[in-house]
């Protein structure tokens, strides 16, 4: 007999899904109780870190004129995750692009707004080229002081969790589900998989094609993260007739058109997978291969062609592959 909890809801402008298998530890709440608890956690996470809510902790931080601002542990972790993601490749995934996002037309949540046609957007898009970090690298001036509970940044620099928030949230919930045999946390397509049971019975994770909606590939995941970044959901047409999307080239401050419309990354955590998938998409086909080679991934070109990169051996994330000690 097996009991599983499968809960789905909307949060962070995306579909969130949590699958929880049987309790591993005696005394752990039932999967149903845990599912409701984790839903509350995700909604609280989203409420406190949304840049679209004027009273969120993130919005309060971004409005604060001081350079050192008191911040909750959650906000400090979020800022630290943003700095970590930026450090991987010199600021290619930059958490200080709030102004550029707003200039591109992403001032409010696009929840409920149907996306524009990606095919039309691609026809009118400029010459494809890889994105690059911003030369000023303002993100390097962000810092977190846990001892005093403050976040420091130059006045006027606003922080955005867009590049790392969902992955961080998925990892956080996964960490909280350690008392269960196996689980999947899906925050808008950024997934964290874990539990000792998943080592014996890995999850099948399907990778969806951004244009056709078909399953490109199914990977078995025993532990770690899988994340996808793409242009198809958050693409819109501005009043000037130009198309835009939410993945910004830090160097230009405008939406990046790199020759890729989607990238999926595998990694040891959802946060890293989300960061790698964004990096891959921002770098375009040539750079993506280098980014995704280590843990594996998939890229989708403008014309819909699919390329698998790296070894995606099944199952992924086994602690003792082939029975050998890791």
């Amino acid at each position, binding site marked *: *007999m*097996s*009991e*599983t*909890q*499968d*809960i*789905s*809801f*909307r*949060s962070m*402008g*995306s*579909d969130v*899904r949590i*699958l929880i298998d049987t309790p591993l530890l005696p005394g752990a709440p039932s*999967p*149903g109780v845990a*599912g409701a608890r984790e*839903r509350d956690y995700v*909604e609280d996470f989203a409420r406190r870190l949304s840049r679209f809510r004027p009273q969120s902790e993130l919005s309060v931080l971004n409005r604060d004129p001081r350079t050192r601002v008191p911040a909750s542990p959650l906000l400090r972790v979020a800022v630290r995750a943003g700095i970590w993601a930026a450090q991987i490749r010199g600021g290619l995934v930059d958490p200080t692009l709030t102004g550029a996002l707003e200039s591109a037309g992403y001032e409010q949540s696009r929840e409920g707004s149907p996306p524009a046609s990606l095919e039309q957007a691609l026809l009118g898009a400029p010459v494809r080229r890889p994105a690059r970090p911003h030369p000023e690298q303002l993100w390097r001036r962000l810092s977190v002081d846990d001892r005093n509970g403050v976040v420091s940044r130059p006045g006027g620099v606003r922080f955005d969790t867009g590049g790392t928030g*969902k992955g961080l949230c998925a990892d956080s919930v996964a960490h909280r589900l350690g008392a269960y045999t196996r689980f*999947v946390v*899906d925050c*808008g*397509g*950024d*997934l964290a998989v874990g539990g000792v049971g998943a080592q014996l*019975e890995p*999850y*099948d*994770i*399907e*990778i*969806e094609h*951004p244009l056709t909606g078909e*399953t490109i590939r*199914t990977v078995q995941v025993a532990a770690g993260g*899988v*994340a*996808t*970044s*793409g*242009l*198809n*959901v*958050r693409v819109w047409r501005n009043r000037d007739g130009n198309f835009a999307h939410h993945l910004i080239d830090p160097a230009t401050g405008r939406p990046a058109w790199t020759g890729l419309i*989607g990238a*999926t990354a595998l990694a040891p955590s959802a946060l890293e997978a989300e960061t790698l998938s964004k990096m891959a998409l921002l770098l375009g086909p040539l750079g993506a291969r280098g980014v995704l080679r280590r843990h594996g991934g998939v890229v989708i070109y403008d014309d819909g062609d699919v390329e698998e990169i790296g070894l995606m051996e099944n199952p992924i994330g086994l602690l003792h592959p082939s029975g050998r000690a890791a």
Partner: protein
Amino acid sequence: MAEQVPAKPARRAKVGSDRVAVALFSLSAFLLVLALLGSQLAPAHSTTSAPSKPVLIRRVYRTTVVERIVPPGSRGGGSSVTQSVSGSSSTPSFTTPAPVTRSS
């Protein structure tokens, strides 16, 4: 003095004919048994006439699905909760759709 006729060669001929008779008898007995066995086995290999025995494979599944759909607006948006309790005599079943990674 009359020369004695040795009896040994005659005995040898008689003994030789007995051995041949025994050998022939054994061979015929063996062939007879073989023929009997063959006649017994032949119908067993014939699949055209004998009706095949029906084989029943039974798998017992016991599944209880409780689904609750919360209408939009009751908790800040639509949601669904599915709890599956499944039992099987053969393999554990996991009936929920596979998680999907997609751009969001």
